């Protein structure tokens, strides 16, 4: 009995010790500016999105989104500290304030976005993905139905796990999930033949396949099990920071729509300055209107962002385009006027 009591007391002390976060109620936006560095949570293991290169730097679409935030908030896209996080760690890392924001292949869902759930707020979607299944070509599996009674390798603690269950359950097909904690293990389990198929977001499947010895021996099935809109996220109670994040992403999309690129940004600024009648452009670039101040940024934040990372299309081409290591057709990720779904509300 005495041992039980002392155990529980010890447990309580341990728990309370862990939960002491700072009690600063002001926005993290100020904290980031004062620190002169943005702490960004990434995966670090997904080629094309966030991947550690041999020289120790991170590269990918998620990484460039972090850089765009840093350019907008601090004025320097290199002032970012990347923290590699597992799927299970990522939300706690935001809640405890270990990171400022998350840019890590995170699916935008109701329970994650709500105060009653994970208590986060999502920025606009940066990549529209969907969950898929990859199988070996020689297995002659062509659809979900062929996978009945087979084992499927899944990453645990993600929406992936729930989606695969929903898909098989609604088709009344029995299956065995083999759950691993991270994608590398899922890949190892699949390649070693423990499972007939591996499942993940289609972008991640494509990225993983690019590292296989014989990428052509593996096919991604046509079945798309879910909508996976991937978006950056931050603490749901910090509206100032989430406002800033939201409009930085819209600025990337809007810049692509207006044809403003990393190369021609200086030229466009000059044009806007010379022509007072180009009101929307002047507001967008912060020459008129003082829009940046309203979201806690400098008025010229769009110029800083575009001159360091380029617009959304340029970021996409760099990491996921036809000439990149992980080519993924743009599909839904095109602008709304080119058959995709990316659209920016007006900068008014």
């Amino acid at each position, binding site marked *: 009995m005495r041992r039980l009591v002392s155990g529980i007391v010890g447990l309580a002390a*341990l728990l*309370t010790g862990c939960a002491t976060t700072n009690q600063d109620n002001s926005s993290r936006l100020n904290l980031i500016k004062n620190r002169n560095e943005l702490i960004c949570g990434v995966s670090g293991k997904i080629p094309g999105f966030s991947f550690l290169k041999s020289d120790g730097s991170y590269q990918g679409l998620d990484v460039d989104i972090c850089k765009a935030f840093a350019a907008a908030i601090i004025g320097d896209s290199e002032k970012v500290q990347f923290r590699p996080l597992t799927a299970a760690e990522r939300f706690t890392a935001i*809640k405890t304030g270990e990171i400022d924001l998350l840019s890590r292949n995170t699916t935008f869902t109701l329970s994650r976005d709500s105060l009653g759930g994970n208590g986060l707020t999502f920025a606009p979607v940066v990549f529209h993905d969907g969950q898929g299944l990859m199988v070996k070509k020689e297995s002659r599996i062509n659809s979900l139905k062929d996978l009945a009674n087979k084992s499927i390798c899944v990453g645990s*603690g993600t929406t992936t796990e729930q989606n695969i269950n929903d898909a098989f359950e609604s088709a009344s097909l029995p299956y065995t999930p083999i759950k691993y*904690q991270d994608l590398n293990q899922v890949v190892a389990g699949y390649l070693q*033949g423990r499972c007939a198929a591996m499942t993940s977001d289609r972008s991640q499947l494509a990225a993983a396949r690019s590292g296989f010895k014989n990428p052509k021996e593996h096919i991604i099935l046509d079945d798309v099990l879910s909508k996976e809109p991937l978006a950056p996220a931050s603490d749901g109670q910090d509206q100032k920071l989430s406002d800033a994040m939201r409009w930085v992403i819209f600025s990337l999309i809007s810049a692509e729509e207006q044809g403003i690129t990393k190369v021609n940004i200086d030229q466009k600024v000059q044009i806007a300055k010379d022509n007072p009648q180009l009101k929307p452009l002047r507001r967008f670039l912060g020459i008129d209107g003082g829009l940046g101040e309203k979201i806690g940024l400098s008025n010229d934040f769009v110029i800083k962002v575009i001159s360091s990372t380029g617009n959304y299309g340029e970021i996409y081409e760099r990491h996921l385009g036809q000439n990149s290591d992980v080519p993924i057709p743009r599909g839904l990720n095109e602008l709304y006027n080119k058959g995709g779904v990316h659209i920016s509300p007006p900068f008014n």
Partner: protein
Amino acid sequence: MKINKKSVLQLGVCIIFFGGLGILINNLTINLIRTGLGFNFTWLFKPASFALAEHPLPYTSSDSYAWAIFIGWLNSLKVIVSSLILATFLGTLIGLARTGKNFLLGIISAGYITVVRQTPLLLQLMFWYFVGFLSLNDNMFIQIKNIFNISNEGIEFSGLTFSSEFLALFLGLSVFTSAYIAEVIRGGILSVSGGQWEAFRSLGLSEREGITRIIIPQALPAIIPGLTSQYLNLAKNSTLAIAVGYSDIYAINDTIINQTGRAIECFIILLISFLLLNLVITNTMEIMNKLTLKSKKYG
């Protein structure tokens, strides 16, 4: 005067301790409310909506989170108890071999202990799983129809199936812990004075009889406390199941945390489950310890 001073001092320590604890609990509550994560356990009874590969009792994805956690606890218990038995058996054999007179056996067991104790458990588990079990090929072993069937999905033995995940964890934990147990056994045996060996030999007892009837009973009081802490370590190490895809209580909680965002509640459940489990182990071993001490006194 002296007693008075002592009790004042004790009172002071108590006030500091409970005061500190109070501040910490207060801090936790305030922070939980501030971040919108107030304690709430009602989610436990909502459907889990994830499937499990291994479940000793019936389980479907429409069962509650609480049931899923219980299944995870059973899975943990299954691997802990079975590893405990195998590790004790292996450890005793190796410990005896290490102390025995046979030179070759001594060298082999010393080598085993060295290799196993000086590599990380996580690596060993990954090795057993990815190198050991997953590289098993269907064609590698002749399948004796319906009796014994080995593949990289696991072992099937007359209707009983053990998955690769379970086997890798079971063997990994057993082998790792057995090396430590062997050292505990060796320490216990060496604690018995050399005169006892000479004594039973001069009485004409065989080596085996001497060890089981003279040496081991005297070594047990020195062995049991060491054994207890190895058992506790084994139970705690079983949470590494997540590395090899086995659905133990920790792996299941990991999924639940991600689905519900209830990290603190889940960790409380985890910590209490392990606290209770280890209390059972400690108390059982304590009883065994008392029994051996008693039998020594009157035996």
